[in-house]
């Protein structure tokens, strides 16, 4: 009886993987620089492999595919995976189905960092990354550690304490961000605002390489903790009785989730709702068990962000809209749908 169930879950993950690969190909071949069929992609791939010798210049299509689209496609995949995994972790960690990746201040910390960096000059590059990305990453981590420190002082890592500390620290950072934006010139604030709304344009391979280790590390820590996440989802008291060293587990998982969120924010700006939507969406197929939910979230988040990015690129001719707006609209629709479906039910998401 159990073997077919496990087979079904493996089949589902395989299906998600297939959808992800197909979505990646579609996203790679579609764009405002022209549509490329699979054959074009194969051809440029051969050309790219053959041009390993330096000095040989690539054709225009190869340049578009490998220096503009491919990093962007991979970035969408990694950011989607990061946000969805972070959301799944946070929901169990905070024992709250509405917890999301930015809950302990990653977004407000990142905003403050980015605004500070922009005041110093938004075009500065650090290790091939825009200084806003680096500052956002540091800001997000700083906010998380501040929240942790505040919560620890006021009694352990109870979910409510963490949440309150997150709200307090987030409020302070938002106030500082607003103050800085008010006191800077429009040509300084415009890049920040566009960045804050989420944007995957003009990101080269450096961002992919920056993000990849965090995605891998986060995914490994998350998958290694599926049994803890299941037990934490039964409440803190039950988790203790079932052998979870709750404070240590929470600290590790919170750190992993924050790294996932902070690196994603650094690479793509604030892209809302992915971490909230994807775990709930995936639970409908996988059930609550984190052993299957986590890989499903990784794949589902990637798929969602690929399509959101495609929409952001293609919706308006000749210009892009911020990807954060696309996921915002999707999130709104998703939760309206959940509400409609759950009205009259127990209300359990």
């Amino acid at each position: 009886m159990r073997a077919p169930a496990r087979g079904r879950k493996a089949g589902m993950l395989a299906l998600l993987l297939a959808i992800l690969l197909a979505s990646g190909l579609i996203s790679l071949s579609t764009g405002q620089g022209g549509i490329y069929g699979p054959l074009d992609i194969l051809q440029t791939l051969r050309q790219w492999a053959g041009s390993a010798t330096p000095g040989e210049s690539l054709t225009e299509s190869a340049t578009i595919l490998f220096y503009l689209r491919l990093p962007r496609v991979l970035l969408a995949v990694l950011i989607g995976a990061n946000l969805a995994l972070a959301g799944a972790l946070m929901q169990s960690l905070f024992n709250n189905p509405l917890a999301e990746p930015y809950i302990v201040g990653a977004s407000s910390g990142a905003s403050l960092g980015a605004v500070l960096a922009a005041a110093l000059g938004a075009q500065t590059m650090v290790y091939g990354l825009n200084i806003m990305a680096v500052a956002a990453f540091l800001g997000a981590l700083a906010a998380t550690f501040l929240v942790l420190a505040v919560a620890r002082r006021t009694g352990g890592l109870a979910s409510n304490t963490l949440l309150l500390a997150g709200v307090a620290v987030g409020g302070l950072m938002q106030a500082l961000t607003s103050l800085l934006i008010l006191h800077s010139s429009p040509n300084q604030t415009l890049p920040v605002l566009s960045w804050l709304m989420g944007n995957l344009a003009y990101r080269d391979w450096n961002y992919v390489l920056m993000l990849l280790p965090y995605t891998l590390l986060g995914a490994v820590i998350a998958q290694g903790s599926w049994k803890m996440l299941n037990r934490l989802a039964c409440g803190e008291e039950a988790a203790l009785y079932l052998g979870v060293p709750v404070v240590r587990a929470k600290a590790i998982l919170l750190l992993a989730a924050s790294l996932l969120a902070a690196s994603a924010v650094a690479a793509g700006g604030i892209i809302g709702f992915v971490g909230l939507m994807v775990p709930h969406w995936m639970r409908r197929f996988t059930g609550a068990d984190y052993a299957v939910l986590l890989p499903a979230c990784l794949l589902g988040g990637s798929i969602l962000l690929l399509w959101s990015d495609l929409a952001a690129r293609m919706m308006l001719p000749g210009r892009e809209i911020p990807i954060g707006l696309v996921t915002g609209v999707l999130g709104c629709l998703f939760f309206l749908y959940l509400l409609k479906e759950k009205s009259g039910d127990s209300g359990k998401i």
Partner: protein
Amino acid sequence: MADPAQDPILEGAGLEVWYGPHPALQAVNISLRRGELLCVVGPNGSGKSTLVKALTGILPLKRGTVQLLGAPLAGYSRTKLSRLLAVVPQTTAMLFSFTARQIVEMGRYPFTGLWETLRPEDRQRVDEAMELAGVAGLASRRADCLSGGELQRVILARALAQRSQALLLDEPMLHLDPGRQIQIFELLSSLASSENLGILCVSHDLNLAAHYAHRIVLLSRGSIYAEGRPEVVLVESSLYRVYRLETRIIPHPQTGRPLILLSGSRFHDVPDAGPGAGITERRTV
């Protein structure tokens, strides 16, 4: 019956717990021995749940020590602890709808390594525990499709799957119908003797406690009011002082254990007055 000379599995000495400025438990000495079913009874707010939490190390003690198998509780990791001590907590807050089987499987997680899934023997234990708690037929049912009583028995199965040496239950009979309550008590009492388990069970049902417990601890305002065999603890004067309850206690016609009959006769002496008025009336006598 437990051998009094035997070392206790779980022992609390001089336990004192405060919630802010309010004492919740004071100078409580309690021991749980192998093979015994110990019932903790007492009115609301008398410290029953606090006692369970103090004995399982999830509440900070202001004073006192808890020892598990002769060693201080604080010396055990939570994983080690969960292999020796299983708890059925009073409330169950399930965030997402796991299936009944997935919930019971969590009782085996402490026995597996970081990257391991459940081994065949773990699955066997899960099957046995679900069978014992009478939830084998609910395996693939999601938690949100279980009744309160069914979920309660699933949680009991999860604790049984832990195969611990001591089992602590905080009002496991909540939500259960009388038939199920008796089944669970029968199960606990047979587990105590067959598996040599030490079982501590918080209960509000004095008659069930009197019928099945080897020993009873009667708590009142955070302290132990009486402790011992059911016929020693459950006497009319004690129940009156602790619960403000008028009772008649007679020996059970079949077992000879105390059988508590609630008698509200005094209340009816006062016309047009609620039970509260009856109590005031009685107290002034």
